[in-house]
């Protein structure tokens, strides 16, 4: 009889304890799997959000990607960037705090985005039309309102609102601009309480009372497939030496170093702990189980089954317990990840479309390697016990006992 058949018979014989051990490994394995998904989940999700926006290079005026300073003489820079052979398209973004007044209700503070060509991927229209497909005659100040804000204000496409720019910390007496909501959208980086409203760059300038002011906060660039983002960055820096241009990968890396490090660390700590926990528990179960079957193992040795086959049998037992639990852990982990993701996404200020637990084949491969290592390590001590067993003395003790 092969070692595998011996192991599977033993496991079938002790059904209750096998079932419980597999259930335990499945739960702990699910947690381990989730921690592996968490370790890079935010980065993958964030990178995906950036990529989905349709631009692979971001040019800012300094202060990093979180604190954006205006880009001086941005219009000429955008024109120069659009003329580069490495660039497919470029969009100019202005961001400003503002006040939005509906016909009824209290005025609300909003984040106004003036965008020129950024709509493709920057937001998804859920009702009405986009800024690029305005009804004729086009309104003087068309607005795209974020879904949470539209729900909060009870407004929709066709509604008229008044918009007044109000820079943070500055008293202003700028007159309101009559605007019309043309669409409701889900912004790529919009939060659950998103207060973003987008309009055309022309309407933004008019609302801000700007004439000749030329300081975009952000320029989004899409490189050509042949050139790629790094070549586009080099070309931009040739056009404007000292320009702060970042590829999506560089932005993700910057967030990885700052904002997302905590979750990477906690997933490392928790996955190490769960692995140690799984090892201890499987090793304890196997050791107790071997101690319970010392007579049986001695009898197997006495009828000619060699040390190697007994060792292989115990390794198979460990592999079947950990393997069975590990396989169950994958669907269980997916279910658990959905629940944990829902909890973490309640964190204030996070984009609605950002996820903490993201599946990637690498996580599955690590999960399987870790479980295989755990199975081998957990079987080491029981194997040592079983293979060094004095056959005659053990059998005698069993009979006398």
């Amino acid at each position: 009889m092969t070692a595998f058949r011996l192991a599977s018979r033993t496991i079938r014989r002790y059904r209750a304890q096998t079932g419980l051990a597999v259930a335990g490994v499945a739960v702990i394995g699910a947690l381990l799997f989730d921690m592996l998904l968490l370790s890079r989940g935010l980065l993958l999700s964030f990178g995906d959000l950036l990529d989905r926006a349709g631009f692979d290079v971001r040019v800012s005026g300094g202060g990093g990607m979180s604190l954006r300073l205006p880009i001086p003489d941005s219009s000429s820079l955008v024109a120069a960037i659009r003329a580069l052979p490495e660039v497919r398209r470029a969009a100019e973004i202005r961001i400003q705090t503002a006040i939005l007044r509906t016909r009824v209700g209290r005025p609300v503070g909003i984040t106004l985005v003036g965008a020129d060509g950024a709509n493709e991927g920057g937001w998804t229209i859920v009702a009405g039309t986009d800024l690029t497909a305005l009804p004729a005659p086009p309104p003087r100040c068309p607005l795209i309102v974020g879904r949470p804000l539209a729900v909060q204000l009870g407004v929709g496409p066709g509604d008229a609102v008044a918009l007044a720019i109000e820079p943070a910390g500055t008293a202003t007496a700028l007159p309101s601009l009559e605007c019309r909501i043309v669409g409701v959208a889900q912004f790529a980086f919009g939060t659950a309480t998103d207060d973003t409203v987008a309009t055309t760059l022309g309407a933004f300038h008019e609302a801000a009372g700007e004439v000749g002011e030329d300081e975009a906060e952000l320029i989004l660039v899409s490189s050509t497939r042949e050139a790629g983002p790094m070549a586009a960055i080099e070309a931009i820096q040739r056009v404007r030496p000292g320009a702060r241009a970042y590829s999506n990968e560089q932005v993700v890396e910057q967030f990885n170093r700052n904002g997302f490090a905590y979750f990477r660390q906690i997933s490392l700590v928790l996955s190490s702990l769960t692995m140690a926990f799984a090892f201890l528990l499987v090793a304890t179960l196997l050791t107790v189980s071997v101690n319970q079957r010392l007579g049986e193992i001695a009898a197997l040795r006495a009828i000619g089954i060699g040390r190697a086959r007994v060792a292989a049998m115990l390794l198979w037992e460990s592999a079947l317990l950990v393997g069975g639990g590990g396989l169950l852990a994958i669907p269980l982990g997916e279910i658990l990840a959905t629940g944990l993701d829902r909890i973490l996404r309640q964190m204030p200020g996070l984009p609605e479309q950002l996820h903490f637990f993201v599946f990637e084949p690498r996580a599955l491969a690590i999960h399987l390697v870790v479980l295989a290592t755990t199975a081998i390590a957990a079987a080491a001590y029981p194997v040592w016990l079983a293979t060094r067993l004095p056959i005659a003395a053990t059998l005698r003790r069993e009979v006398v006992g």
Partner: protein
Amino acid sequence: MRFIVAALVVGATAVGLAAEPHPILVSRQLAARAHLAVGDRVTLAVDPQGSRRAEFRVAGIYEPTPDPMRFTTARLEAQLHLPDLIDLAADPADPASRESLTALNVALVDPASARQFGVDLQARAPGTQAQRTARSQSDDPFAVLERFHVAISAVTMIGGTAFLLALMVIRAEERRETVGVLRLVGISRRTLLASVALEGVVIASLGAVFGVLLAVATEGLVNAIFQARYDTTLVFVRVTPSIALRAILVAAPLGIVAGLGASWTLLRRNILSIVRR
């Protein structure tokens, strides 16, 4: 009143000047990064070109108050007297900038009147925003993290219970014949179940106490690793008496359930099958 500013140190000099520069405090992290010591003279500027700059004297080095919201960022900070900061940062072309503040901290006589205070302030000074320094449960990221950690603990506990149950099943099976003999001499199922439940409580409680001791023993190590990693004095792990008590109180009933569950499969059989007759 002092104000915090993230400023760029463009140079340190030991050249003596006639007028004594105004004092500033620099954070420990900035002092280490810029190799500053008490008494050094530094130049702070509001832009990389150094178009508006002023010289200061390092009067002291301080440890920034740990902030859980900012522990991943290097605390490169300097504290200036407010008039010094205004002189340095105010835009000469905009006289109103000398009258602007980013924030004001207010301690109310009656903290319960915070909401009314905010309404009154906004009525008197339109455009200002008053908010409580204490976060509400709905916008506190740490409340979310706590829920996440509780969920992870619950999952770990379920896994641990399954293993405890498996161990108790093995132990019950080991003592099958002893249990059979005890039943034969007249000891009731209820008494045996009570003894098993007690054993479960003892095992689970000892495990929980060991876990708490392990957590206390490794608390310092975990804190040391994270504090070194993020260069902060923030405490990441703290085993409080209430947490320790909660762990033990949760473990004890699980021990009873595991003990009873494992023994019931054995005890519900008739005596002869227990003694294999």
